[in-house]
């Protein structure tokens, strides 16, 4: 469970990116965080990643208080999260298999475990046949699938996706969202930061809307018209 209680984040004194935000996300939930640029959605993402420190309030992720977490414990905490970015962030000099294996390699997994789990993960994201290809040989959607496979290979409890469909056409974007839904159905909590109302409308999931650092609505939306 993720509990964000009365969280305020100030990057510069007086300039609040988040104002007294409170959100609770249960285990196994699929949640969209929506908002315009500067609404604070990426700040929440960074706080959950423990990339930034909160100014006040409390964030608890699966019984771990992020505010009190020592820096030395951060790598261990991050192994319990999976992260996907808009720009994929794949290693250009490594093929699909190596990109996914990389995530296991850096956390010290054995070669045997890597050989077992990477093909299974590639099968799950539908890239078994392309395991030898390099990122520049793949479409945007396929690159994002590799990024998702890399995020999931260490079996995280929570998957954080920051604008995962931002660089994709609507067909590929829906494909990625379907994949995230499948992952969620397997028990992983999925949090997607986005500003695409088209996707939000089609998915029919819980949506947390943000504006100027505050939560302005929270609930399941169907056919909500987002004024840009």
């Amino acid at each position, binding site marked *: 469970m993720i509990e964000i209680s009365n969280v305020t984040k100030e990057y510069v004194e007086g300039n609040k990116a988040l104002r007294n935000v409170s959100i609770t996300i249960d285990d196994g939930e699929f949640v969209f965080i929506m908002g315009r640029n500067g609404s604070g959605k990426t700040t929440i993402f960074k706080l959950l990643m423990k990339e930034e420190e909160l100014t006040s309030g409390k964030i608890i992720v699966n019984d771990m208080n992020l505010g009190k977490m020592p820096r030395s414990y951060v790598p261990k905490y991050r192994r319990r999260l999976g992260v996907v970015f808009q720009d994929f962030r794949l290693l250009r000099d490594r093929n699909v298999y190596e990109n996914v294996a990389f995530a296991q390699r850096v956390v010290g997994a054995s070669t045997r475990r890597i050989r077992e789990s990477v093909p299974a993960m590639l099968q799950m994201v539908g890239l078994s046949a392309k395991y030898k290809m390099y990122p520049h040989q793949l479409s945007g959607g396929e690159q994002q699938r590799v990024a998702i496979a890399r995020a999931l290979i*260490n079996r995280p409890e929570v998957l954080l996706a920051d604008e995962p469909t931002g660089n994709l056409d609507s067909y590929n974007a829906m494909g990625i969202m379907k994949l995230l839904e499948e992952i969620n159905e397997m028990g992983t909590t999925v949090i997607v930061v986005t500003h695409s109302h088209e996707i939000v409308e089609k998915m029919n999931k819980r949506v947390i809307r943000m504006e100027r650092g505050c939560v302005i609505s929270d609930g399941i939306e169907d056919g909500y018209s987002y004024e840009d």
Partner: protein
Amino acid sequence: MRISTFWYCMKQGIKNICRNIWFSLASIATISACIFLFCMFFSIMVNVQNVVRIAETTVGITVFFDEDMTENQIRALGSEIGKRPEVSSMEFVSAAEAWEIMKEDYFEGLEELAEGFEEDNPMAGSASYQIFLKDISKQGQFVAYLNNLDGVRRVNYSNSAAAGLTSFNTVIGLLSVVIIGVLLGVSVFLISNTINVAAAFRRNENQIMRYIGATNGMIRAPFVVEGIIIGLIGAAIPLVVMFFLYGQAMEYLQTRFQILSQIFQFLPLRQIFPYMAGTAMLLGLGIGFFASFFTIRKHLRV
């Protein structure tokens, strides 16, 4: 750390070197220059120290005593002198022995001239002690101590030999420390630059590693491997050069400047090489390790 992780870090470190080959080569060249100079000074210093050691066993101090002292009194004073910590060994030369030595030195072939003195030893009152010191640099203060003793008439010693050898050794030592220090600084700076460039190349990879949950050690390891490899290669090159150059240089010096071979007894390479190689490799490893370890710290923000 798993063996597979170890090999992974090794592979990445080698990849880093290949990616920035010119920076790596510049670092290797500087370390090589630094360690070559170290090896040169090391060779000179151990050879000079060897000469000093030989001098310490051959350059002695001769102490003469007042003429009215009996042999027993001289021996008693001699045993007092022998208790001093500076003394390595000492030998008593009686008046009769002194006369025998003189006869051999000055009356060789003219023994009949010496016979005229048989009844009247011209060396009477010349009983002495020949003293050898453990450390020739202490000669000055030891001579001062002897001169202050009651019963000591004269102290013979070679001041220039001791002073020359010790000051030459000190100058060589200081010079090598200064030059090696400057080169060490340059080497660390260059390795640090190379590591910074490698870190810039791997910025994306490091960022992904941080998000995935890699520890600082795991992110740092390829850079430290890179630094250590550069340091070790930088140390190995001058050692190979020294291995082939030392014997030839010694031979050249001895044939070209024959006077040197009378003063100097050059140590054979096999006697100094293990120490030189060990120290040089440790130096290379140390430079590589510390330069990379501390440079990469600023890229480890989690």
